[in-house]
């Protein structure tokens, strides 16, 4: 059985279930206990779990992430909310030099079961310092796991897996996804394993490899192409960027021979480059055309709505890329 609930409610269910299941899970961040989180994503949690386990904090990102790492080393499973993903930059040492490295550097004496929740992405003219998608920095950093839900189902299953993971995990949740509704299985133990992509839609002419909010844009593009031009496009939702499901990528290339990689993060130096390079190295003979990468322009996210909407890929751009690929070889 499944129910239709919002992405926000799906994350709340994940938090509630994991906090009930494991007394070492606790949550801290700015404006979460009394205010319920800036997107309402923590509403009601203090009522059930108390303000010791759902902690309001000062605006001290370095201390929050650092203390999250310390608590994780000492046997807890902290979930730290970053308020906006952009503010991870204030805790880079704690994340990159501490959380990511301690297990390896200390010869596996410890685990760091820390989850960072980081609302990211472009929405509502939030401007250059509240709109970024920074996931590729952390895919590049050995020792971290990076997951990005595309819908309510992912939101719940990936968050539960993140909390249960003994590796430090970044959970990027796009701000514009919080109110969106979707189907979520009725199962307290529903989790989505890391490193397993999901094929959201079948199609033999091309594949869009994507994740996060861009999955919805890719599905919209695929539906338009199918309906208007009889171009059948597979859509692969990666869900987890590290570990990355290289097998699903290779399978998609073998099946469709044409690939568009799309994300909202800046294209230059983005995760799409890793995927395109992997395909070039390992799947070259399966390709009928060069891989196309789509991502935001290499500029800060602008404030003016008309400028903001001009600089990242949405359904029409994704559809156009697929169309170009298919026409090249037909």
């Amino acid at each position: 059985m499944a129910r239709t609930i919002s992405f926000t409610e799906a994350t709340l269910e994940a938090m509630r279930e994991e906090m009930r299941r494991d007394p070492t899970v606790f949550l801290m961040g700015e404006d979460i206990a009394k205010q319920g989180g800036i997107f309402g994503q923590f509403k009601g949690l203090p009522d059930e779990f108390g303000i010791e386990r759902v902690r309001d904090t000062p605006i001290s990102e370095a201390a929050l992430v650092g203390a999250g790492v310390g608590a994780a080393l000492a046997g807890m499973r902290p979930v730290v909310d970053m308020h906006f993903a952009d503010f991870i930059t204030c805790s880079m040492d704690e994340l990159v030099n501490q959380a990511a490295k301690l297990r390896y550097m200390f010869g596996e004496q410890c685990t760091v079961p820390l989850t960072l929740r980081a609302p990211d992405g472009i929405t509502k003219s939030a401007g250059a310092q509240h709109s970024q998608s920074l996931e590729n920095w952390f895919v590049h950093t050995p020792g971290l796991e990076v997951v990005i839900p595309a819908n309510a189902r992912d939101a719940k299953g990936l968050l539960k897996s993140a909390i249960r993971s003994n590796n430090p995990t970044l959970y990027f949740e796009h701000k514009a996804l919080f109110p969106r509704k979707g189907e979520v299985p009725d199962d307290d133990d529903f989790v989505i394993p890391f490193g397993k992509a999901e094929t959201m839609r079948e199609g033999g002419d091309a594949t869009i490899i994507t994740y996060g909010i861009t999955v919805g844009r890719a599905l919209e593009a695929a539906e338009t192409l199918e309906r208007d031009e009889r171009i059948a496009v597979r859509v692969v939702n990666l869900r987890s960027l590290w570990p990355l499901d290289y097998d699903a990528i290779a399978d998609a290339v073998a099946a469709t021979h044409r690939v568009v990689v799309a994300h909202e993060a800046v294209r230059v130096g983005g995760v799409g480059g890793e995927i395109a390079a992997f395909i070039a190295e390992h799947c070259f003979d399966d390709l009928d055309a060069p891989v196309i990468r789509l991502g935001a322009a290499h500029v800060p996210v602008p404030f003016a709505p008309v400028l903001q909407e001009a600089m990242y890929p949405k359904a029409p751009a994704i559809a156009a890329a697929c169309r170009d690929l298919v026409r090249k070889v037909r």
Partner: protein
Amino acid sequence: MTHTLTPDAPLADSEISLATALLQMMIRVRVLEEGIERHFLAGEIPGFAHLSIGQEAVAAGVCAALRRDDYIASTHRGHGHTLAKGTAMRAMVAELFARADGVCRGKGGSMHIADFSVGMLGANGVVAGGFGLVVGAALAARLRKTDQVAVCFFGDGATNRGPFHENLNLAAIWNLPALFVLENNHYASTTATSETMKIEDVAIRADGYGIPSQIVDGFDALAVYYGTGEAVERARRGDGPTFIECKTYRVRGHYIGDPERYRTKGEVDAHKSDDPIVRLQARLGSNLSQRDFEGLWEAAKSEFADALAFARASAQPEAGEAFRGAYEGDRDPETPHGAFAVREEAAF
């Protein structure tokens, strides 16, 4: 702010075994570090190593006031803290020699040595890197309702970094069982503290966060022990964190091989009488015979000789180790992390 002064009065009978134990620990640290210096200069120890010679009273005094299950986080100058918290010298020397039997399997080295079996959460290659770890460990103790305390060792240089301020504030508002132990050795790497801050007593910074502080003679292991004991008791009672400034001096350079162009030999020599081992031996006076004092040195030297032999006999890590250990699961090829580790290994 309270000042714990060094009493010149003779030791009470009850203090003699404590003082002897502190002296023994300081001698073990000194012998270990002099050995590290020799074998580093001989090319047997790769990487960087930073010595705490002259500062041993802090490591010995603080750790003697802790339980095995209390936590500490250390600095890049952390050999003394590690040994004093209870790590075996064999495991330490093997780690510095980058061997498979090192306490971190040869993946940490001097600057990133840790021993979770004794609550030692790691030396840290990042100045001020330990504050968050300690505040988090103290928070964990609170949430799990244990009476453990967590101690952060740091230098004067670390107090000019943001995490110092953020974490002291967090520990204060949450009344956490944390101790902040400053080893003010008067140098941040090669720059004198007088050039990096406008205050003489760094402890006044704790006032700004509502954290009580002590200033302790950091050459006096007993004074450090008593100051720490008070702070530990406060923390275990649930009365929150304490800041302890230990005034000390770094006799060696910032790192082994430091040409020390930033200070005169005269300045270093002026601190010779501050040697914490000399000072505590003098305090013990006739309570410790010259023969027993020499016995402490001999025992430490044979402990080091044994650790050295152990390290030299230990194997180098296998090359496959380079690709594993970052993630739980990466030793199992059936997991995504393990499958990737296999792929990475095959690429070399």
